[in-house]
């Protein structure tokens, strides 16, 4: 470890970073809550009291009862079970969008930051253009062209979000690239890929983690908005946004159908945000900047 540190004067101190993160109680609680939400959603097939489409017509639109802890919807389907299954879909959808953003944004950010020049300029302007639009609006426009559906919607969101990662990675890369020890490695002919993997990626990782955590929250919200409008996840597949959309039509009789999916989304986004804030605080120098 010690000569490692000499070799990397700018090493990110990932360990110290994680240690500082662990002392942040709020972020830690958020991480636990998020883990619970994820585990409960993923084990829906095991835990859910009813199957996804099981209909109990006599008990439709019921409030909480011993049989249906959180009531039922207009077809008499069990809300608790549907929330659990919907969680799978929503989390997976948000994850997919962010994964696409990573696949697009990170390599391009590394490239632009490492190479600089015209390429950097062009990619930078491209990012500016994409960032001009509100994420949901641009994603909708892409969906208009490609057609609706979960995958299309998440690809669209991924594309729309990629410039944010691009910018973070680019500026982190640029600052490491200008360190003397990196310039020295380059001048003695170390291959670019090896420099990127060994010197640059470790430094990019921390700010990237912060951004990814915050982006998961944003993607979850955007996915819910699109599904609510019927442009993302479409029925009969349940998602939290979709449940909210259907629930809204019953708001006068069964407000619970609006309260519950909303609370599920809010708790999850809050957790992602708090984790992101915790990571950012653990990163220290990022916090005080205005942007």
């Amino acid at each position, binding site marked *: 470890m010690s000569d490692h540190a000499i070799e990397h004067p700018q090493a990110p101190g990932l360990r110290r970073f994680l240690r500082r993160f662990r002392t942040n109680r709020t972020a830690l609680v958020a991480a636990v809550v998020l883990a619970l939400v994820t585990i409960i959603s993923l084990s829906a097939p095991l835990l859910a009291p009813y199957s996804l489409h099981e209909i109990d017509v006599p008990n439709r639109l019921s409030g909480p009862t011993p049989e249906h802890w959180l009531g039922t919807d207009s077809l008499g389907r069990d809300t608790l079970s549907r929330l659990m299954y919907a969680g799978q879909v929503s989390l997976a959808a948000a994850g997919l969008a962010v994964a696409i953003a990573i696949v697009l944004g990170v390599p391009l950010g590394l490239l632009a930051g490492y190479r600089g020049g015209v390429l950097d300029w062009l990619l930078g302007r491209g990012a500016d253009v994409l960032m001009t639009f*509100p994420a949901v609006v641009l994603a*909708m*426009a892409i969906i208009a062209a490609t057609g*609706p559906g979960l995958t299309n919607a998440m690809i669209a969101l991924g594309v729309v979000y990629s410039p944010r990662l691009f910018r973070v990675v680019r500026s982190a890369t640029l600052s490491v690239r200008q360190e003397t020890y990196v310039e020295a490695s380059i001048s003695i002919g170390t291959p670019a890929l090896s420099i990127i993997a060994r010197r640059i990626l470790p430094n990019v990782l921390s700010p990237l983690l912060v951004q990814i955590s915050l982006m998961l929250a944003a993607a979850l919200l955007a996915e*819910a908005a699109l599904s609510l409008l019927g442009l993302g996840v479409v029925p009969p597949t349940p998602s939290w946004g979709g449940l909210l959309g259907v629930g809204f039509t019953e708001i006068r009789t069964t407000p619970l159908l609006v309260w519950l999916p909303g609370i599920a989304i809010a708790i999850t986004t809050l957790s992602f945000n708090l984790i992101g804030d915790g990571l950012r605080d653990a990163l220290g120098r990022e916090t005080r900047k205005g942007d």
Partner: protein
Amino acid sequence: MLLLIARRLLVTIPLLILVSFLIYSLIALVPGDPAVTLAGQDPTPEQIAAAREELGLTDPFIVQYWHWLVNAVQLDFGASLFNSEPVASAIAARLPATLSLTVLALLIAILLGVAAGTLAGLRPGSWIDRVATFSASVGVAVPYFWVGMILVLLFAIQTPLFPAIGYVPIGDGVLTWASHLILPATALAIAPAAVIARQTRAAVANVMTEDYVRTAEAKGLPRSRVVGKHALKNAALPVVTVFGIEANRLIGGTVVIEQLFAIPGVGQLAFTSVFSRDMPMVQGVLLTTAVLILLINLLVDVSYGYFNPRVRQL
């Protein structure tokens, strides 16, 4: 100051051209032959030909774009593929509702955010600060569309204070106009207010320790002027920066909110045209949104000059 505006315009216009190119390129994403895909369900050959004509697909791509751009500059965005309504007039008819909603929501966000952030920043660590900071965390995370639904439930259904849906032009009376917009605007304002509050808190807490605030106190100014004039004008810069970002997000939110509250605005038009894949309309809406957002960014940039005199001479 004028120079500053001119310089910003010089950056904005090329960006707008790039943006327009992106908007036009969306057509290229349409799978298969766009004319066939977009002409509607089971199109007749005439409908396909009409769609091809309307979309200008007969020329090479860059020529198509050029024609579209030249027309767009003259506020001619073509016509809807569905009802042949000119896109420009459809948007113009819906702009007032969206602008009303957006401006009101931004006002609420600023007032709420700056007030809460200032109170918190004046006494860091106090209970006001802790309540404000916690509320801000929640405010950023709650889905705005859900907040809208809950507001309808609480203030339109359970306690019928405001109408649940609909829009009344401001010409028909400011009060009815406002009463229709207050719930959707509040729903849109919560998250930006939270972000603005956080930023204001940090900036105010920072500025209050500056020497010039002590100077203002030493002059015997009342507290309200020390804070309202000397501290806030300096704290405004970082707040204005997030304001630009939040305005962008808020405008995105109008699409869902207009749908929920049945407000006949541009957002609703965006939704219906996306749903029916009416590309000319989608493009027109996108361009309108982009212009609106670039205008806001321009205002933000220019306001830097007001808040920070040093920027003016650059």
